[in-house]
């Protein structure tokens, strides 16, 4: 075979090409299949109400808080590390934001509604970024294990959270602020956004084909590209159609979507993304390739902090108050979503679409089991079995391929 051709362009029959692409992406297909199976089971058990527009709308809205954090956690786990502090950090940010909304802004900015909301968002993000940079600097420059530093961080943020709340619940349901977590994009706008997505994906596909030709790489048949773009568009269409027949695309889902698209681009197309994967695959080789690995690790934890901050803001707005229990246990959902989504705990392997599917599996289980009135005790048992079984299946297939 000629090594000077990329894998996808070697001339093989359609069937072998299809099979190859399936076996290469077997993990993603298994994950998608798992989502379909879980949804089908809940659809049957709930007599169809699981796939109600209202339920679909809520499902993704509920998942957005943890899913935002998985975007950062993916990077952390890619480096072979872990961040245990994200749940409590998001909780801490949520009470800080609630505190600002409830106690501060109306004194400083009487009569304003938009400006306080904007300031809250900025402050929430800053708290997250600052927390991330402190932890990141200790981990990267102090050479301490992320596990220990973020375990400390988890306790610290819990303490700070208790200090801010003084054990009380703080309301955060002010009109403009609550749009962030509870608002909907009007259906007409939703369709507008869909049209923009269609245009962007199609243009992107053609410009990709054009640059491939420009660089002299063979282009795969047009219909194959059309099918893959078409499939994505159909899925998004189904979603937009469904939520539009309720109240429209939830604002937090839109925030998540934008953040996810940016992070997918960053992980695939930037130096930062490449270095992260390389670092997770082999730290030593990456450093000896002239990459500033300490700065890399530091940046990743700052980003993680930023996403926890964003999640905290959405959380405060979504539940409408800041409580002492805010964010408790979220870190484990986030980590589980990453692992379910095919991220290797050893580092170097994982994708943004993967962790999002992981997050949606967990959200679907939570919602579905609640709808079926399963006792919380048994909800944990079911989730435990699915988490371990999913990873087992993954490991099993990987062994088989070897």
């Amino acid at each position, binding site marked *: 075979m000629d090594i000077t051709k*990329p894998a996808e362009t070697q001339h093989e029959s359609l069937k072998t090409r299809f099979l190859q692409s399936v076996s290469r992406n077997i993990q993603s297909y298994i994950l998608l299949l798992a989502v379909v199976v879980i949804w089908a089971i809940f659809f049957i058990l709930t007599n169809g109400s699981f796939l109600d527009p209202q339920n679909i709308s809520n499902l993704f809205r509920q998942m957005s808080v943890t899913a935002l954090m998985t975007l950062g956690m993916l990077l952390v786990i890619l480096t072979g590390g872990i961040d245990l502090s994200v749940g409590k950090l998001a909780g801490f940010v949520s009470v800080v934001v609630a505190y600002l909304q409830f106690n501060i802004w109306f004194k400083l900015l009487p009569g304003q509604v938009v400006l306080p909301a904007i300031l809250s968002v900025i402050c929430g993000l800053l708290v997250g970024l600052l927390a991330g940079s402190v932890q990141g600097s200790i981990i990267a420059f102090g050479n301490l294990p992320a596990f220990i530093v973020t375990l400390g961080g988890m306790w610290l943020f819990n303490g700070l959270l208790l200090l801010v709340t003084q054990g009380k619940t703080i309301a955060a349901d002010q009109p403009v602020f609550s749009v962030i977590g509870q608002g909907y994009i009007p259906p007409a706008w939703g369709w507008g956004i869909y049209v923009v997505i269609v245009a962007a994906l199609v243009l992107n596909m053609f410009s990709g084909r054009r640059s491939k030709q420009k660089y002299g790489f063979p282009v795969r048949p047009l219909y194959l590209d059309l099918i893959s773009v078409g499939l994505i568009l159909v899925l998004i269409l189904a979603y937009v159609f469904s939520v539009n027949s309720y109240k429209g695309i939830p604002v937090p889902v839109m925030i998540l979507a934008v953040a996810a698209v940016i992070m997918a681009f960053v992980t695939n197309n930037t130096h930062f993304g490449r270095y992260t994967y390389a670092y997770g695959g082999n730290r030593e080789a990456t450093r000896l390739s*002239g990459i500033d690995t300490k700065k890399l690790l530091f940046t990743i934890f700052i980003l993680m902090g930023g996403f926890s901050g964003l999640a905290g803001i959405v959380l405060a707005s979504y539940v409408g108050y800041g409580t002492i229990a805010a964010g408790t246990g979220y870190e484990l959902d986030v980590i589980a979503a990453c692992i379910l989504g095919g991220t290797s705990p050893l580092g170097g392997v994982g994708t943004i679409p993967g962790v999002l599917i992981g997050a949606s599996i967990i959200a679907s289980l939570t919602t579905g089991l609640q709808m079926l009135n399963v006792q919380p005790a048994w909800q944990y048992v079911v989730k435990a079995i699915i988490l371990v079984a999913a990873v087992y299946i993954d490991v099993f297939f990987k062994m088989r391929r070897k």
Partner: protein
Amino acid sequence: MDTENILEFKQVTKHFPGVVALKDVSFEIRRGEIHGICGENGAGKSTLVKILSGVYPHGTYEGEVIYGGEELKLGQSSIREAVEKGIAIVYQELTLVPTRTVGENVFLGKEPVEHGRINWNKLYAETQAILTKYQLDVDPFAVVNNLGVGKMQMVEIAKALSENAQVLILDEPTSALSKEEVEKLMDILRTLKKHGITCIYISHRLEEFFMIADRVTVMRDGKVITTQPTKDLDRNILIKYMVGREIKERFPKGNRKPGDVILEVEGLEATNPNVPDRKVLDGVSFNVRKGEILGIAGLMGSGRTELVMTIFGEYGKITSGSIWMKGKEIKPKSAREAINSGLVLVPEDRKKMGLVLIQSIIRNISLPNLDQFSRDGIINSYEEMKACMQEAKSLTIKAPNLDVMVETLSGGNQQKVVISKWLLSNPEVLIMDDPTRGIDVGAKYEIYKLMNELAEKGVAIIMISSDLEEVMGMSDRIMVMCRGHSTATLPAENADKEHIMALATGVAVA
């Protein structure tokens, strides 16, 4: 059971998706002999070993393996089974628990238990008995971590023997050993032979077959080319069988014309970064010119690797002396700074330090060079693919395509990936730390040719090697190191082996 042949391979064929790893392999191994197997990387030696060890169990290959007169039928997922049947393997990468003692390692998983407790006295006594019987000079109470590679290998052998091994397979046992340790290993193998143990000896170092093997099987492209008594063979015939053609000269002739001095090191002294009062470099001075190959000779532990890692900003703390690049003093504190000043390093251990094994060839080649194909930190993957392809093509990396994981490549091809990634960055000084270690003859020759081409283009090359012939064959000048200092720098043409050895061992001073 006492058949003449302890192992017989009968038309063994092993397929992998898209590749035939073994094709109709038939040969036999006689009871009690030392049987050498040689071949280039990818010839099928490791596949053969994996069939014997049960990694590829019965049924995953075609043909028969007869062991002691019966067909060897190892079950799925049971590597223990081979060990219980008496087939033991000493791997290239040692498999000991470093923080435990020799005795614990030898009896790992089969500790003598009495009344639910381990009888430690018995364990150590039995370990000592095995060590004495086979004349293995190791203390059963020593912690493995504190042993040298040679001794660790003895422990590994003891571990295999404690299972009553009939057949001992040694896969590249000498790749990390010093000359004395190799001699010692040869003695051990002779002792084992006296005790009737059959050894299968796999190595790239052909001269070792002539030291100990009774017969040698040569493999190429998954096939057995020949099995012959060692006494009927010589080095050149072996190489001819292995590569399928005759390599007239081991080292290709270059047409190098060294120019101006580009890198100069003066009186460099440095300490171990972890043990600040231990000196690793104690006065090293040399220079290298554009288009020149400077060889560095020296025994293991002479400070060769420490020297280049220090110059590369990744090892010692410099306590005195200076490094000059193109007339300007540089003080690299990290690989990044060294690379920016025009130095690159092909490290000693390519798997640990040179490659991201779980990533594709393209990703590995492009890693330090992303700036070349990106704008504002955003990568143009087509530019990337194009550049990497050109590089991979000019170095003739053999792989199905450039998207395969580097992990799956042979040692020679992996090394070529490391070299390509640095060539793409257009270095002025290329440092190569033992660039041909563990690489087969054919790939070695290609790497030598490449070094010549680069030097002809004006790149200065510093090459460390444990293979004295390689240093003498490839270099323009040779710097000899001994105990952290440079003892002499000699022109290669009138260097002789004995003189270099004398300088390296500190017997002679220049």
